[in-house]
Structures are given as C-alpha cells and as structure tokens.
C-alpha cells in the first residue's frame, strides 16, 4: 500500500536528482566555457550564468533531500506503520531517540542519510572553495553535483519510500541497545562525505593537468575536517564494539571495520602530503593520487558493507544493490584512472614539483615520501586482507580465513617504521626550528629502560620509548630565537601525533591482558592475576519485552575490595537474540572487564568471564587527543593562505605505470600457479571409547566395512528428524557391509539413553561428553555424518541432517562398490 507522504518522498528524491543533474550540467558548462587566462577572476557571461544556476539547483536538490529526510523522520517518530519501512525498523516499545535513529538502521534509510551527508558537503563546498579560480571551482562543483546525482539514483533504487516490508521483523536489538549506535553512522558518513571534496579536487587537478591556485589549501582544509570526523567515527565504532559487544576486544579486523579504516588511512597519508609543513619530496603527485583514492575507498566501503559481498557481523543483509554500487564504483574509478593515464604518469604531466624541489627535499623529502609510501602500503595490505579472501572464494572456491594473526604479522614491521618516522616528525617538518634532541632522547631512553625492566616485553619497551620520545620532542614551545608562538598547525599535529603514539602503546600493552572464564556458584571467586571477582548475587527480571539476568560481583585487587561489577545478560525473546552487557571498571592502569556469558538464577550459578586488559583507557584518550588535534588544526588560519605557484612540468619518462600494470598479471599468475591441494581422502580420525550401553567401541575395528559415523545429541531437534533415515539405511545395507556408529556429543547420559530407546536406534553410540572426540572429525555442529570407506579413509562428510537422497547417491554406491 502506498500513501500520500510516501509518494511525496519519492517525488522529492526525484526532484533532488533532477536538480543535481542540472547543477552538474551548469557547472560543467561553466568549466568548459573559454575564460580568460587561467586563474582570471573575471568570468564571462556563460560562466556567470552557469555559476548562478549551479548553486541554485544544488540548493534545490539539498532542500528536497532535507524534505525527504524530514518526511521519513516524522513518520518514524509517529511510528506510522502504514509505511513498510517504518514498520520494519521500529517497534512499539522504542523510545523517541531510537525511533529517530532507526532511520539508518536499515539499508534504504542509511543510503538516504548518506545522500543527505553528501549534499550537505556539496552545499558547504560551494561556499568554501572560493580560493579556487572560478573555472577550477566549476570543475570541482560539477563533480560534487554529479556525485549527488549518482547517489540520488542509488537512493531511488533502494528508497525507504518504496521499500517492501521485508520479513526481518523488528530491528536488531544491537542497534537499539546503546545510544552510541545512533551517533556512530552520521559521524562516519559525514567524514566519508567530506572526502568527496578532495576527490573532486583531484579530478580538477587531473583535468587541468596542474595544481590550480588555491588547490592545496582547499584540499588540506577538507581533508583535515574529514580526517577528524573519521577518526572520531572509527574510534567511536571501536569503543562501541568494546563496551557493548562483550567480547572484550575493540578491533576484530572484520571486513566492515577494515572498510572504514581504508579511507582513514588514505586521509592520513593525504594529510601528510598537503600539510603546509610536509610539502616536501614528491608531495604534489601524492596529493593528487591520495585525494582521489580516499573517496574511491569510501565507495568501496559502501560496496563491501551493503552488497553482502563479504561475510561480516556488521554488514547489512544481502541486497540486490551490489551491482548498482559496483557500477557506481566503476563509474568513479574509470574516469579518474583515464584522467591519470591521459597524463601518462602523474609525475610526468603533473607538476611533480621541480626536480630540484624533490632533490632539494633531501633526507626530509625521502622521509616524507617514505612515510606516505608506508601508509599506502599499510592501506594496500589491509585492503588485500579484506578483499582477497572473497576474490579467492569466487576464483578458486577455496575458503581462506584472514584474522588478527595475519594482520599482526603483515603490519607489524610497517607500524614500527611509522612509529620511528613519527618520532622524527619534528625534524621533518618545514618552516620549523627543530627541538634539541637531548631531552626527548633522555626521556625516551629512560622510558624504554624502565618499561623493559618492569614489564619484560622488548616490543612494548621499544614502542613506549619511541612514544615518550615523540610526545616530548613535539611539545610546541615558543621558538627561542624568533619569539614566534607556535601556530595551530604545530599544536594540532603534536596532539594528533601524541594520540597515535599513546594509541600504539595501548595496543601493544593490550596483549598483556589476561582472560579467565569459569562457571561460578554464588559465593565463589574467579581470579585473573591479582584481580578477583566474587559472585554474590544473581537474579533475573523482565524489562520491557526483554529478560535481563543480572549478576553482582565484588571486584578485588591484591585482596583489597575495589568495587562492584554488575554485568547483565539481556535476552530478546522476539529476536531470539542474546546480548551481553559487560561491566567495565576502567582505571588509569587497566580495565577490569566482567562479562556474564550464561546465567542460571534457579541453580544460583553463572558462567563469568573476567578479562584484565592494561591501558585500554589510554586508547580512548589517544583517540580523543587525535580528534582534538584535528579540531585545532582545522580551525581557520589567520591571514591569507599562501598558495603555491602553479607550474607545468614535463619530466623524464618513468616506467612506473607500466611496471605497476604488470602487477595484477603477476598476482593472477601466482594465484593460478599455486598448487591446488590434492583431494585424496585421508585416513579417518581415531574414535574409540565407551558407548552409551557401557561397552567399548572403536571405529578402527570396523575396518573392512563401510562406516557411517553420525554425531548427534538428544537436545538437537534436527537429529530427531534424521534418525529414521539412518536407522532405515542401517537395516537395509547392513548385509552389504554397512556399519553405523554414533557419537553422542555434549549430552547427558539419561536423556541420551531415552533418545536411543525412543528413536529405536539400531546402532551403538560412543559417548563424547566434552565434545573433544568429535573435534578430531571436524565437527561444526550436530547433526553431522561422516562416511568412512572399507580402507578406513574418510571419504565424505555431510553437515546437517542426513537425507534419503544422500544415502542413495553417496552411501549406497560406496557400500555396493
């Protein structure tokens, strides 16, 4: 059913799309119209008309989108259930705050939010790109308006105004369980959208084949804003993951988390290409490449998050949007790459800076270029870890897992090198009197020594030493000679660098955490290092449609009572979802993180996890410092910004582009050549032990017969369904040499025996009370059935309930072979 407001919403989206197209066309015309000499501030009539029509249309577009957002919000707040989308994302028990933020809890609404962020950025950009010459500005605005139009189309394809109700029911309890989830997406989207301006500027520079006047300053401002928002957004996401999910960590290297990290890395590298004190080495080439790359990675992130392409906890459900977003990504990448290629190599046609400047950069230029290269390599490695497993699955069908150990091994060397460069930052900055290295050197050495002796971890000692050096060396002091007070850029970069250094210490120190887990009866104690928790109370109550189990634990440190932890376990019966409500007691030194994994108030016992992780609080402080640094640095500068002179330059030809083009071919070749695993079936794992009937059984003794090994438990409903099939197969094929042997997994004897008699099981079952025997067989969950041939080789496995078809097509031929 479609109602009036829903039609209005669709019309508003269409109007905004049309207006954005008009704006793009107007600016496109203004950009193409021949003006006077480049950089002239006197536009001719066509350009003037275009310059008027452009902003007007863009404002119309923005107003329409704002109207659409408003319509949706009103419907959400009134909980107008005639809208399928509203019905899908809200339920009656939600507070106004969660109803308002429910807009971006599903795919369609979050796309509308993204569109709103993008159009806001475009409108703000019309007012803040005045440093550029009108012609160049027209290119930038044309690109931005085109982006709004493109995502306008996406939003019409997946519109909250036409979306179907879906079978999902009410939104995931995770999204209405914590206030931070309302803030996190808008923050991240704002940062993502702000990167659109550097992308547009990158296109403008490539179109003009030079860095237009005002380009660097404009890019820097937008990038600093984007970086600050992204840092806050990514940091908030990590904090939410830590404080709400209850697994005790903050970064799981999940594809969706990584997808938000990639633009941040590009933005960080860009920050160190266009920053006024880092313009050294081949910064112009880097700036153009990184400015474009940032937003392309944002679109890639959208594709990863919304297409169901990768497996992730955070991804939206699989949608048909994948191809659309892939087209958008292609539509953004191809023209940009075409422009790059048109200028042969960016370093060729673009003003890569006079060669003298690159050489003149000397050690500083090398170090700054090295730093950009390192950040980009980290970016590529993270992208490989995020996307390559999916690519391999599609290409070869092999499942490969990439987890924290892989990222640690691949990224650790680069992280260490980056920390060294971070420590050297004050000596790499231009226009600045470097500090005397004695004091920071002494502080760093002392820290390294003390940490090494007390904690006995060489990595932590080195990282802490470098961090102490970084923080001390960068302290913005009044220059002794010039008497100049440090400007905001210096203070901002010091804050951000101190944040990164502290964050590194916190991350490395986090590996010294301890985790203990136990089932505690009330009154019992669990200890982890010097920290103890004693369960003193356990109860359960109903709270607005959810059941909350609450435990009270006394926290002790070194035998001193330091406080009380009250972790919760919230059960949402409607969604069949269990959420942990961990209790975190933060201190300067460590976090005591208590999670309730399972609670049984009736028997008065609870499964409790106690994790003590050092310096987690430092990480949040580090993120705050970095954000503060970004805020300080993005504050407008007093006095007019000096714009670097534009120069065209045709340098010597370098074969880099060609060399880089060989890479994909090489990679494909390597993947193709990688020896495929031979699928020769191996010997079946051992399985022997006491059966439910008290006798001893061993699968090895059945050599000579074909054996079906089936894992079951009395608590597993699908097992009940499959048993008749197995019993029939056993009776039918026993004479031909089929044996069936059960594994009774993680079960109690009495219910298991009852199951055997109820189902009339004709075969024995080995007891595997702790599930350790079935782990050798690669059991993922019951039921599962394995086929062992007469030579004792494991030839087939069948997860899930056995079907008659499987018996007929796989088991019977093997028996009759």
């Amino acid at each position, binding site marked *: 059913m479609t109602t009036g407001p829903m039609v209005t919403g669709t019309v508003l989206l269409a109007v905004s799309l049309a207006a954005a197209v008009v704006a793009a066309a107007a600016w496109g015309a203004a950009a193409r119209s021949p003006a006077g000499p480049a950089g002239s501030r006197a536009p001719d009539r066509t350009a003037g008309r275009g310059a008027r029509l452009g902003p007007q249309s863009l404002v119309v577009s923005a107003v329409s989108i704002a109207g659409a957002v408003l319509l949706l919000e009103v419907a959400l707040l009134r909980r107008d259930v005639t809208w399928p989308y509203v019905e899908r994302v809200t339920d009656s028990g939600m507070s106004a705050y969660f109803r308002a933020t429910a807009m971006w809890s599903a795919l369609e609404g979050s796309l509308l939010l993204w569109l709103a962020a993008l159009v806001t950025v475009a409108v703000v950009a019309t007012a803040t790109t005045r440093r550029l010459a009108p012609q160049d500005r027209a290119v930038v605005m044309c690109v931005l308006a085109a982006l709004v139009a493109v995502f306008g189309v996406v939003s019409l394809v997946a519109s909250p105004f036409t979306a179907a109700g879906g079978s999902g029911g009410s939104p995931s309890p995770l999204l209405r369980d914590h206030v931070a989830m309302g803030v996190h997406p808008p923050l991240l989207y704002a940062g993502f959208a702000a990167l659109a301006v550097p992308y547009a500027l990158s296109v403008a520079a490539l179109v003009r084949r030079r860095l237009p006047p005002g380009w660097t300053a404009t890019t820097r401002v937008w990038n600093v804003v984007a970086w600050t928002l992204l840092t806050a957004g990514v940091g908030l996401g990590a904090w939410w993951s830590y404080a709400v999910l209850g*697994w005790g960590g903050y970064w799981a290297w999940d594809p969706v988390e990584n997808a938000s990290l990639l633009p941040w890395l590009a933005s960080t590298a860009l920050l160190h290409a266009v920053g006024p004190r880092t313009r050294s080495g081949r910064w112009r080439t880097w700036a153009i490449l990184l400015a474009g790359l940032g937003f392309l990675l944002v679109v890639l992130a959208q594709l990863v998050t919304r297409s169901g392409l990768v*497996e992730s906890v955070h991804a939206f459900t699989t949608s048909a949007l994948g191809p659309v977003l892939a087209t958008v990504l292609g539509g953004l990448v191809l023209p940009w790459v075409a422009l790059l290629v048109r200028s042969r190599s960016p370093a060729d046609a673009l003003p890569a800076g006079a060669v003298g400047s690159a050489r003149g950069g000397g050690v500083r230029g090398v170090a700054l*270029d090295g730093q950009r*290269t390192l950040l980009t390599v980290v970016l*590529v490695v993270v992208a*490989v870890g995020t996307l*390559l*497993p999916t690519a391999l699955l599609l290409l*070869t069908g092999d499942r*490969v*897992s990439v*987890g*924290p*150990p*892989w990222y640690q*091994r*691949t990224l650790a060397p680069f992280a260490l090198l980056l920390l060294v460069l971070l420590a050297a930052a004050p000596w790499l900055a231009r226009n600045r009197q470097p500090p005397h290295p004695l004091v920071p050197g002494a502080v760093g*050495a002392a820290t390294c*020594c003390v*940490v090494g*002796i007390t*904690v*006995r*971890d060489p990595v932590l*000692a*080195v990282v802490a*030493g470098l961090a102490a050096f970084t923080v001390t060396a960068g302290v913005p002091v009044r220059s002794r000679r010039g008497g100049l007070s440090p400007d905001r850029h210096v203070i901002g970069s010091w804050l951000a660098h101190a944040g990164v250094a502290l964050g590194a210490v916190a991350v490395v120190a986090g590996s010294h955490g301890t985790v203990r887990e136990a089932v505690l009866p*009330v*009154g*019992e*104690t669990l*200890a982890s*290092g*010097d920290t*103890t928790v*004693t369960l*003193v*109370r356990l109860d359960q109550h109903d709270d607005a449609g959810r059941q909350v189990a609450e435990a009270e634990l*006394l926290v*002790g440190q*070194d*035998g*001193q*009572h330091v406080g009380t932890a009250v972790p919760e376990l919230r059960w949402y019966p409607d969604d069949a979802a269990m959420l942990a409500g961990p209790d975190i007691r933060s201190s300067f030194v460590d976090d005591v993180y208590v999670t309730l994994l399972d609670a049984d108030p009736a028997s008065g016992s609870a*499964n409790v996890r106690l994790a003590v992780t050092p310096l987690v609080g430092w990480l949040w402080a580090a993120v705050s410092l970095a954000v503060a640094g970004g805020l300080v640095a993005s504050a407008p500068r007093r006095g007019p910004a000096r714009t670097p002179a534009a120069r065209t330059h045709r340098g010597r030809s*370098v074969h880099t582009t060609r060399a880089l083009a060989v*890479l994909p071919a090489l*990679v494909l070749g390597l993947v193709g050549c*990688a020896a*495929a*695993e031979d699928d020769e079936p*191996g010997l079946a794992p051992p399985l022997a032990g006491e059966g439910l009937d008290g006798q001893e059984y061993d699968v090895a003794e059945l050599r000579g017969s074909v054996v079906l090994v089936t894992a079951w438990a009395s608590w597993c409903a699908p097992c009940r369904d499959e048993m008749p099939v197995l019993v029939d197969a056993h009776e039918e094929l026993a004479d031909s040499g089929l044996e069936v042997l059960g594994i009774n997994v*993680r079960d109690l004897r009495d219910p298991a025996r009852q199951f055997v008699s109820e189902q009339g099981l004709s075969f024995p079952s080995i007891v595997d009370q*702790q*599930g*350790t025997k079935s*782990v*050798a067989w*690669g059991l*993922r969950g019951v039921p599962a059935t394995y086929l062992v041939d007469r030579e004792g080789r494991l030839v087939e496995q069948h997860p899930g309930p056995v079907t008659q078809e499987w018996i007929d097509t796989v088991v019977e031929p093997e028996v009759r072979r």
Partner: protein
Amino acid sequence: MSRRRRSWSVAVLAVVLVLVAAAGAVVALTDREPPTATERVRAVASSLRCPSCLGEHVADSTSPVAESMRLVVAEQLDAGRSPDQVRAWFADAYGDEVLLEPPRRGAAWALWVVPLVVVGAAAVWFARRRGRHTLGTTAAVVGVAMLGIWWLAPGLLPTSTGGALTAAVPSDAGDGDRAGSAVSVLRDAAEEQPGRVELRTALARQLEEAGRTDAAVPHWATAVRLRPMDADLRYRYAFALARTGEPDRAVPVLEQTLAIDAHHPPSLLLLGSSIEESDPERSAALLERYRAARGGAEAEP
C-alpha cells in the same frame, strides 16, 4: 668549552642514552617469563577460527564447538605438542579455513605473496625515484628480503617438536592464595555494607572452604540475624556451629528453623543426629520425618 670537547660530550651522551635504552630492551628480551599453561592455550585458541560462528576466534567464542576445541588445544599442549603442530592438527580436521593466519600453501599462498609483491613494487618505485643511489636500492632490497623471510619462513621451516617447551611451564596462580585474597575482599565489602546478607554468606562460605569454619560462624550468625526467616541460612549457621564443636548452640537454631519450615530436610537430619544421644526417641522421629520429606521430594519430579 671548545667545539671539539663539546662534540665529544654530545657523542658520549648519545652513547649513554642508547645504552640505557638498550639495557631495558635486553633485560626484557633475556629475562622474559615463560607463559603459563592458560596463556599458551589462549594463544593457540585465538589463532583458530570458530567454525560455527561468524568472525570469532576459538578463544573468545561461547559456542559449544569452540569450548570443545579449547579443551582439545589444552589436551594436546599438555601432551607436549607444539603450537604449530596443534594448529596443523586442526587444519587437518577442519580444513585450512580454521587457521586465522592462513597457511603458506594452496590458494592462501596468495595472501602472503600479494602483499610481498606490493611492498617489493613500492620499494623498487621508491628506490628508482630517488635516482641511482646504490645505498638506497641495497637498503630496499635487504628490507624486502627480510620482510619476505618474516612473512614466509614460518611456513617453510619444518614444524618443531614441542617437547622441550613443556618442561618449564609455570602453573597458574595458586588456589590457596586466591582464596585468601577473595576472603579479604569479601571482608572489606561486608564491612562497608554490613546489611548485605549476600556478602556475609559468600564470606562465610569462602572461610569454610579455606578450612576456617570457626571464623565463619559469626558471619553466619549475622546473616541469620539479617534474614531470620531463611531456613537454608539457619541450617548453614547450625551446621557451622555443629562442626566447630558447639552442637549445643546449634540445637536451638535448628529448633527455630523447624518452627519456620517443619519439613526442611537437612535441618531434620542435622537436628536428628545432634540429639541422638540426649533424646533418642525424638531423634528417631525426626529422622523418620527426614526420610519422609526426602522421599516426598524425590517422588515429586
């Protein structure tokens, strides 16, 4: 101060600082405590993917399969197998996708080679851009080679037999020590909130477990005073009194318990056996009632 002397002092100072920093790192490197058994299990478990979950490793997952897998890891490490051997065993059972650090074989090989190719290309590009400095090129080549060894070597070396490792694994913190500190924490908490029955009972239980029933008696007494109608609490108080050799004091407590709940089985049993000598007739009656109550309780479900 002459220029020469000054540069000398700077050099000496720099050397001293480097030595101080190095000293810390060296001490840390040589004098590291070996990990405890729990830490070793956790380290291996966190490098295995939980096969029935999404994006979780075995160490953190609460799924039953992960729990069984943790037990297997502990079993195998106990048996003296090295972490790499344990991982290889799991890869056999569950396939390579169970390894969170992909193996250096098959399709997963690409995950090690692709980053190395990227880094190599970046290094070549970087070195060439800087002109023909042989030093830079050499440094780049050496760096990439070292990185290659760091990334690829673990798969190329034969897995070591982990026999030697098991010798010096320290056990986890002693239980007695833990109980002692838990008691003092509970005592602090009970003093701060004297009216909380939960704290009193937990403290009394821990004291009993530590073999200090006499110290537990006053806490049971306080708990009973705070919650006089709780038959279970009264029974625990009486039980502690009986165990510390004061059955005479236990008897009135139990009498009151039975006044509250005439069919409280443990109280019937305890009172019955306490007065066996002084009043055999009543004792027999009580024990009969106990058997009736027990039988009734068992027949119920």
